[in-house]
């Protein structure tokens, strides 16, 4: 699947397509930190999923309403106690992990509530980021479009870091996808060449 047009913002969202490829048609989905709901809407329209978004921000909730998706106003930091264990085929956390305080907690909750978890995040190990650090500055880039003093991203990580966390949380990684700055799959040195990482994982039993 190639680049996808995001109907809500009319911008290209290759990450949507990457996630959609993993979703079985008709699946039941929970999208954590769903923003304006455009990913869920995209998955509903292309994968015929049934789902709910979880979002804390009022403005985003209204946008979800306009996008016609189910959304539950809830603080992810408080966990997912309102959701039954094992009640979703996929629990998605798309580019939200790095902004969460309870990183480990949310991974645990994803493993509890979903049969599979899907996480995407900007790779801090991307070579341009590393160059900026070497040059003496915190990275500012397409996927990290903030300065150090105004960023909501408090838990940035590299591919290697995330994989270590999965191991620690008893999550078995089923599939990994890494995209380059040009939205192409990265096969060599992903932790260096990848700008965006996607993981699909499940509970290790």
């Amino acid at each position: 699947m190639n680049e996808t047009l995001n109907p809500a913002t009319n911008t290209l969202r290759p990450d949507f397509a990457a996630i959609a490829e993993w979703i079985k048609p008709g699946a039941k989905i929970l999208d954590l930190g769903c923003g304006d709901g455009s990913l869920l809407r995209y998955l509903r329209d292309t994968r015929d999923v049934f789902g709910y978004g979880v979002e804390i921000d009022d403005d985003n909730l209204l946008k979800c309403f306009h996008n016609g998706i189910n959304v539950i106003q809830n603080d992810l930091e408080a966990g997912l106690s309102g959701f039954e264990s094992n009640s979703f085929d996929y629990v998605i956390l798309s580019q939200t992990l790095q902004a969460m305080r309870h990183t480990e907690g949310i991974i645990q909750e994803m493993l509890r509530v979903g049969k599979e978890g899907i996480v995407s995040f900007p790779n801090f190990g991307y070579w341009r980021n590393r160059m900026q650090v070497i040059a003496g500055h915190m990275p500012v880039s397409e996927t990290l479009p903030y300065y150090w003093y105004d960023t909501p991203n408090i838990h940035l990580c590299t591919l290697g870091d995330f994989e270590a966390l999965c191991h620690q949380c008893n999550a078995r990684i089923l599939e990994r996808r890494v995209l380059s700055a040009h939205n192409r799959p990265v096969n060599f040195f992903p932790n260096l060449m990848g700008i965006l990482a996607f993981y699909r994982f499940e509970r290790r039993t």
Partner: protein
Amino acid sequence: MGVVTPQYVQIVKPLQLKSGYVLDSYHLVYETYGQLNAARSNAVLICHALSGNHHVAGIYADKEKSSGWWDNMVGPGKPIDTDRFFVIGVNNLGGCHGSTGPASIDTRTGKPYGASFPMVTVEDWVETQAQLADHLGIEQFAAVVGGSLGGMQALQWTLDYPERVRHAVVVAAAAKLTAQNIAFNDVARQAIMTDQEFYGGNFYAYDTLPRRGLRLARMLGHITYLSDDSMAAKFGRSLRKGELSFGFDVEFEIESYLRYQGDKFADLFDANTYLLMTKALDYFNPADSYNGDLSAAFRVAMANFLIVSFTSDWRFSPERSREIVKALLDNKINVSYAEVTTTHGHDSFLMEAPYYHQLVRAYMDNISI
């Protein structure tokens, strides 16, 4: 909305109440706003709360200050848009604004029912509202909407008539009252029932009203519908005369406000209706028939839901709404839930917080008719 006129319907089909009592016939007073479309697919029922009635929107001719209780929500161009929807407000059975209630004449005795008026429940109200829908030729509601006790009716609709409700908008409600909530209701009832003018509910015969009791009940209720913060912001410790008078007359503004609200209410509202409404609140518990399993209770529901709560509402707290949401999620039902940040407590559902109204508007706009 403009000028509106109440209408009446006499229902002659006997009604078997949940208590077992059979009411042979009763009438309901209702108002409608907007036009029922040819497909009869744009009807919205508004269920009222404890002290509400059928007068949801608009004003009465030749009567100032007669705006409906949800006039900020319902009307042309309002969140529940009467240019698009055919909206119905109905006074519940047992009410005191025109539907058959304790002050109505019992044809068997020729006297007001008074204490002999049967207990009514949320389920009973839904049944009477379904009779009204039949009368109006409405097979299915686009939405049933309610706040507080009204929200309970919207919930019950989706259980008793799943195929007759496409959407339920449930605001500041609960799937059951907590012990604390029942306790408040009972203090209110005791205030009324221990008033010497109550005469066991038959005060009509004595040409009097249990004003003191009703006033206390309302004052207590009013405190619980507001929040500590909103009372602090509105009244603080402001003094009526600017200085202490070292007496038991009104000194603080909050006292003045509560007494005024209590007095106003005591002259307008029927004490027996107040008792009935609070009991209906206490009894509501759809999970009761399912060993307390609310998710099991909602297995039959087919509607799409919007659940709204308010952060400062401690009488019908967000936790209660989240219980409803959980039960709906467990049944893979379409539901959206919004927790609106306000300072106005339970009364927030009647107020015009921008985010709250935008949510309801966006939700209603998405309803296809």
